[in-house]
């Protein structure tokens, strides 16, 4: 593979790996109860294109989180990725790098009128994913999460900073990435079905990547309406992410609208 092709693949994989930020009902600053498991599965469909090509990506993240203590949560994520190209018969698929995250509660206050929670997280991928869909470089991440829940409303903010390729394994080290996701939602109890709720949500996701030797700095802003239906410990989620603003450069692929369908089960 020539140098230009390697660089191109790196840019595609980086976009896929790190723009998983946001994406419906993130509990943000609230850590789950002790001994609580949260299992999430999603289907994500996204496309990217430029003058030369169009990349179609389907992803199925599977996430398991566990409340080790009330203030400390562990999370593991595996993602199956399938990529096809409009003008090429080539198909890339396989398991992406596993991703491990630990979240620490910094502050939580429960009152009759509202809940506030602040938590930080530290995370990293383990660069052992399939060569077809993983760059196999260490990308650790630090983050801060804040939740404000005035009764039936919710505002969740999650910010993270990703140190890309810290071991400088890649030929051209990509720029570090900053993501911030804000989700505003309301929880509407369903009177006809006890223990069930309907929750419209709007998310704003901003992601920016610093310049590297290969690419200039670039950013993207998504606006995402969505909905969740929750029944007891199970919730179904759907979200569409619309890119409302993004840096346009010939060396960077444009991201198009994305679809996220998911379910979450807690036990």
């Amino acid at each position, binding site marked *: 593979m020539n140098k230009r092709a390697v660089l191109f693949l790196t840019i595609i994989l980086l976009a896929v790996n790190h723009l998983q930020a946001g994406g419906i009902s993130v509990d943000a600053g609230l850590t789950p*109860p002790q001994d*609580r498991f949260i299992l999430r599965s999603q289907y994500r469909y996204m496309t990217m294109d430029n003058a030369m090509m169009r990349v179609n990506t389907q992803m199925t993240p599977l996430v398991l989180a566990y409340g080790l203590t*009330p203030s400390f949560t562990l999370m593991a994520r595996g993602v199956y990725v399938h990529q096809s190209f409009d003008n090429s018969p080539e198909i890339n698929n396989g398991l992406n790098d596993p991703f491990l995250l630990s979240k620490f509660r910094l502050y939580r206050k429960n009152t009759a009128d509202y809940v506030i929670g602040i938590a930080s997280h530290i995370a990293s991928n383990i660069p052992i994913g399939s060569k077809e869909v993983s760059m196999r470089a260490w990308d650790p991440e630090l983050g801060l999460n804040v939740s404000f829940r005035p009764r039936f409303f919710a505002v969740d903010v999650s910010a993270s900073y990703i140190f890309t390729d810290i071991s400088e394994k890649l030929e051209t080290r990509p720029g570090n990435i900053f993501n911030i996701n804000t989700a505003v939602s309301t929880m509407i109890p369903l009177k006809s079905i006890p223990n069930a709720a309907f929750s419209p949500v709007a998310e704003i996701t901003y992601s920016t990547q610093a310049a590297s030797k290969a690419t200039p700095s670039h950013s993207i802003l998504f606006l995402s309406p969505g909905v969740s239906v*929750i029944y007891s410990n199970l919730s179904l989620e759907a979200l569409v992410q619309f890119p409302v603003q993004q840096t346009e450069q010939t060396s960077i692929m444009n991201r198009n609208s994305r679809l996220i369908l998911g379910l979450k089960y807690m036990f």
Partner: protein
Amino acid sequence: MKTLRSIIIMAALLMMPAHIFAQSNAQEEQPQNNQQSQPDTLRYTVYGMDCPGCEGGLEKQVDKIPAVKSSKGNWVKQELQVIVKPDSSLRIRELKKRVKKANFTLDMNTTKEEDE
């Protein structure tokens, strides 16, 4: 062929949580048939629940108290209902500790108690 394989793997990953949900529901239904006596029912106000899913996290912790036969959270009413085993007494300190482990807060000023 590769595409077909990918679709099958994705479908399997999506179905896994639903399968686990069905299994655990079946397990939860069995013990309810063993209720025989009329135990005490206690009600408490609990702050911090903001969705239907929170109820299960609270109940999981409270049900670990040996004196508790079963519990039921209500996120809309901010209420916890606890059924105590016959000839057992519920220590408020232990209940408070369990509610805290669920990341919620027990309101000690608004507790109501009733015998059924």
